[in-house]
């Protein structure tokens, strides 16, 4: 053990060795979303052709954030990226290159200043007053914008023309229009409910329009009272009114593509999205579909121009590097990326606006004409992405996710929404001054949980001692003799497995546990937090407790379904019933798919309008009506038309069938393997005694496979506690507080909030709970074995 630890530490101290090479290889991981990676890979290839001394290693992935974050935490910095990191802190720590000197230099073509090739204002988002370096009074620029999406309301022009509707300019006109649409039997709007954060675009637009740039900045900087301000409440009321009254049926169960599809299928007149819409829906827009885009409305007493657009740009950041040649090459790559030819190419490929002047109306398809016009006309833009100036604001993002969910489902009023966010902001303000601050909200529950775990641990230790005493008295299970040679043999047999396991599972895990006692944002200095993270989780965090409750649900409910079903199947197959072999093969199919695939299948299956679940249920209802079945049941079945299965308030019940679908085969094979070990003579004897097969099952099979039943129970309990992937994927990676599990909570805390200490503390608690729970199950069943 100690030697393994030594090797491990040695390796850690040894660190990475970088190799020198004539050819510079740039390492640029990029986030791939709606626009795809193709354009960027093509750009990297072309750049390498133009500059043979530079090899651009650019790779995109939809989950690149997790990877870059891990690399940064391990001290392995890329050359540049657009992955979501805690940039304000990185800038503060001097890790990000100030691009201002380069921007004042020539552009790629060499016929102008680089800075002037960008659209006005887009460089301000990551501009900061110059810090230490002499930069001629100019402010430093850290982020380089490229794709430049605009939030708009897309509408069906043909439909509008037919009814004589015109795009509204104010919110009052907007709501009048919605009511007119409803009178005409048209559903006004679709919005994704699985990704509710799309709704923020409405909130932001309305809020910005009322408070202006300064008020909006104050809001983002956690100013006291910004969230209880009547103007913020008014903006929230707009979102609430739209969400509770004017959305298409089943919106809560729609992903963003499903919501957009509902619009294209003519199930509503408008949809809210950003400029990536046309690219995402490419090939699915009917040829004769006239796509219109309008700016989000304003208030008649709003203080900003009605032409102000809400933009959401992708920004690239270049990391500072001692190697100037390398750094220059990285900057050159971005100069090439923003060259006229490349910009036009992107605008055409993605059919989406770019933050550079080179792209104009002529580069977009006819579907983007309205967006292009909005951009031409715009008197200014404000950026939709929240300014993450501190870790506190990342935490606030979770508070927003929770409150937004309740607002949009009509559970709370706009005033309550504001009050909740204000309360969260207040707590974070206090914590900024006093990092160890914890609000006592769950004292009773915290003490109960701690005493429960402590009690179980004591019982585990005590009962084990009792067992070993008992074992000595009665002889117990006779231990094998461990002579000198056997000893060596045993060590030789366990050694390789244990070594490998310790090196690649146990020690990395334990190393991470150490962070639970610190406050750490992943790259800066760790500060000692003592038990502060645990105190925060157990005493203050609401999410921790709801997540734990959800885990309990997943620990108890699915196993109660899965175990009996799997056991029944196994018994059936064991008895060689008709088609037993087919069962054995088929039931394991879902296991073969993997979490991502399974989640995607069920997302498609549960889709309110085009999924097969609702189609099958309503079809069954129709059948019943035709055959004259009971009307109540038929009516109930037909009510599933457009039902939002994945809406967050009953997400977990919709997960149970998926769970059964995925887990049943696994347990079935386990049970079957165990049943094969039961001697056939026992059944034959029972048969002679006239015992029925049911009786045989309960008196022979069950007791003899108990060991495996226990193992499978442990696996299911552990699985319930560890549940992560399914919930994560079914909630578009942004679960509201009510649907978090400890696993998603940990990953969210780690990768979205950058609170490494807290994430580690969650992991430690999870680990402790799983260990206690599984040992208790094992111990409890073993005692039974001794007693019977």
């Amino acid at each position, binding site marked *: 053990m100690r030697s393994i630890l030594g090797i491990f530490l040695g390796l850690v101290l040894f660190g990475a060795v970088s190799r020198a090479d004539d050819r510079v290889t740039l390492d640029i991981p990029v986030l791939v979303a709606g626009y795809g990676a193709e354009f960027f890979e093509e750009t990297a290839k072309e750049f390498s052709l133009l500059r043979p001394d530079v090899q651009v290693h650019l790779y995109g992935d939809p989950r690149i954030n997790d990877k870059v974050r891990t690399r940064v935490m391990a001290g392995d910095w890329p050359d540049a990226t657009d992955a979501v990191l805690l940039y304000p802190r990185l800038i503060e720590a001097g890790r990000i290159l100030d691009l201002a000197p380069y921007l004042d230099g020539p552009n790629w073509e060499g016929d102008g200043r680089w800075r002037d090739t960008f659209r006005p204002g887009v460089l301000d988002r990551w501009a900061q007053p110059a810090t230490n370096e002499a930069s001629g009074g100019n402010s430093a620029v850290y982020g380089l914008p490229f794709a430049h999406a605009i939030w708009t309301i897309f509408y069906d022009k043909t439909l509008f023309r037919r009814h004589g509707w015109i795009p509204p300019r104010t919110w009052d006109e907007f709501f009048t229009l919605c009511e007119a649409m409803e009178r005409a039997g048209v559903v006004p709007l679709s919005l994704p409910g699985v990704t509710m954060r799309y709704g923020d675009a409405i909130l932001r637009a309305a809020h910005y329009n009322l408070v202006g740039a300064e008020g909006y900045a104050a809001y983002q900087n956690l100013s006291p009272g910004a969230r209880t301000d009547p103007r913020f409440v008014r903006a929230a009321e707009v979102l609430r009114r739209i969400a509770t009254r004017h959305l298409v049926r089943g919106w809560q169960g729609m992903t963003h593509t499903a919501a957009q599809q509902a619009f294209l299928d003519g199930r509503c007149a408008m949809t809210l999205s950003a400029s990536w819409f046309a690219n995402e829906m490419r090939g*699915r827009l009917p040829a004769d579909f006239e796509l219109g885009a309008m700016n989000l409305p304003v208030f008649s007493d709003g203080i900003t121009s009605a032409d102000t657009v809400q933009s959401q740009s992708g920004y690239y950041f270049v990391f500072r590097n001692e190697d100037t040649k390398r750094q220059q090459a990285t900057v050159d790559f971005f100069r090439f990326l923003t060259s006229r030819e490349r910009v036009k190419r992107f605008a055409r490929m993605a059919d989406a606006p770019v933050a550079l002047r080179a792209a104009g109306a002529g580069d977009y398809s006819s579907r983007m004409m309205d967006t292009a016009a909005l951009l031409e006309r715009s008197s200014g833009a404000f950026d939709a992405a929240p300014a993450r100036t501190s870790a506190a604001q990342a935490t606030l993002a979770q508070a927003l996710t929770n409150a937004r969910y309740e607002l949009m489902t009509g559970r709370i009023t706009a005033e309550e929404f504001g009050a909740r966010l204000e309360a969260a902001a207040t707590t974070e303000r206090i914590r900024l001054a006093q990092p160890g601050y914890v609000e006592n909200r769950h004292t009773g529950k915290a003490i109960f949980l701690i005493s429960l775990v402590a009690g179980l641990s004591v019982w585990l230790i005590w009962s084990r001692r009792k067992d070993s005493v008992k074992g000595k008295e009665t002889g117990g299970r006779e231990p094998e003799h461990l002579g000198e040679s056997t000893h060596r043999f045993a060590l030789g047999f366990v050694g390789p497995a244990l070594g490998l396991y310790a090196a690649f599972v146990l020690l990395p895990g334990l190393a991470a546990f150490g962070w639970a006692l610190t406050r750490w944002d992943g790259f800066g200095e760790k500060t000692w937090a003592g038990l502060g993270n645990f105190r925060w989780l157990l005493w203050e965090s609401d999410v921790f407790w709801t997540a734990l409750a959800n885990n309990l649900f997943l620990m108890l409910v699915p196993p109660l379904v899965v175990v009996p079903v799997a056991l029944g199947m196994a018994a059936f197959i064991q008895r060689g019933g*008709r088609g037993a072999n087919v069962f054995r093969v088929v039931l394991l199919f879902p296991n073969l798919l993997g979490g991502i695939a399974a989640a995607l299948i069920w997302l498609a299956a549960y889709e309110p309008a085009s999924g097969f679940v609702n189609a099958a249920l309503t079809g069954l209802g129709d059948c019943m009506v035709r055959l004259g079945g009971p009307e109540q049941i038929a009516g109930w079945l037909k009510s599933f038309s457009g039902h939002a299965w994945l809406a967050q308030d009953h997400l977990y019940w919709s997960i149970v069938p998926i769970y059964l679908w995925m887990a049943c085969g696994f347990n079935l094979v386990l049970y079957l393997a165990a049943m094969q070990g039961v001697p056939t003579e026992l059944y034959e004897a029972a048969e002679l005694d006239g015992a029925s097969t049911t009786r045989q099952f309960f008196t022979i099979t069950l007791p003899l496979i108990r060991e495996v039943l226990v193992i499978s129970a442990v696996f299911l309990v552990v699985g319930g506690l560890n549940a992560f992937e399914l919930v994560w994927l079914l909630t578009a990676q942004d679960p509201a507080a009510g649907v978090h599990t400890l696993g998603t909570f940990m990953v969210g805390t780690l990768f979205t909030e950058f609170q490494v200490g807290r994430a580690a503390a969650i992991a430690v608690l999870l680990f402790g709970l799983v260990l206690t729970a599984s040992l208790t199950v094992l111990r409890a069943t073993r005692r039974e074995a001794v007693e019977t």
Partner: protein
Amino acid sequence: MKTRGRITVSSGLLGVALGGYLAWVLFPMVWVAYSSFKDDVAIRAEPLSPPDWAKIDGTGYVRAWHEARFGDYVLNSVLVTAVSVALILVLGAMAAYVLSRFHHRLSRLVYTLFLAGLTMPAQLAMVPLFFELRALGLLDTRAGLILVYTANGLPFAVFILAGFFRSLPRSLYEAAIIDGCSEAGAFWRVMLPLARPGLITVAIFQFIGIWKEYFYAFMIVGGADGGARTLPLGLANLAITAQYRGDYGMLFAGLVMVTLPILVVYLLLQRQLVSGITAGAVKG
């Protein structure tokens, strides 16, 4: 055993229930399989209807093959999965044998350590692991991925196999020793073959788990020029792209292509499982 199959009303009902259940398990996959031959418009408009055989749309397969780069990744997947499963079986069986049959002060502790491994938070432990692999020069290599998969598969193997070894009668072991086998000989020649059903169970699950594993593969071999990428990375890319484009035809085609090889392997191993049953019966 088959001769005992007496057909009664209750077992008839059971059969119907099981049949219904079977249909429910099977349907989503059948749905995926036949929908992969429909174009997008047809998938959305008529989710349930079978494809129109007159105008089968197989272009989803072409798009999926291209998008997910299956051709490049399939060999890596085969290699990584095969070596990892083999290592897990050998090392896991050795450890499980000793832990289940020899009592020692530390054996329980070691067993518990393996149990604890099932709950190590992969995302968090990834940071030190990444550090370690980089220091060892194992990043973006198949070897690195194999070592991590093996280490992660061992707890499951130890659990299952320990149960099997515990159930084997002591007399067999004693007989082997009396016949002049060494400890290791008794294990390799007598005990291990008897644990065959358990080995097959472990092999099937590890094969499935590793074949479709995404997170470690993404972190360890996900680099662009890393020629060590595995199929799930391609599939994940495909899945997300399909989701953004709403291209279900391509997604379904990709799912079929990734799942089919596992199905074949599983069906082959299934035969082995049946022979394992016979071995178990002889033992009993």
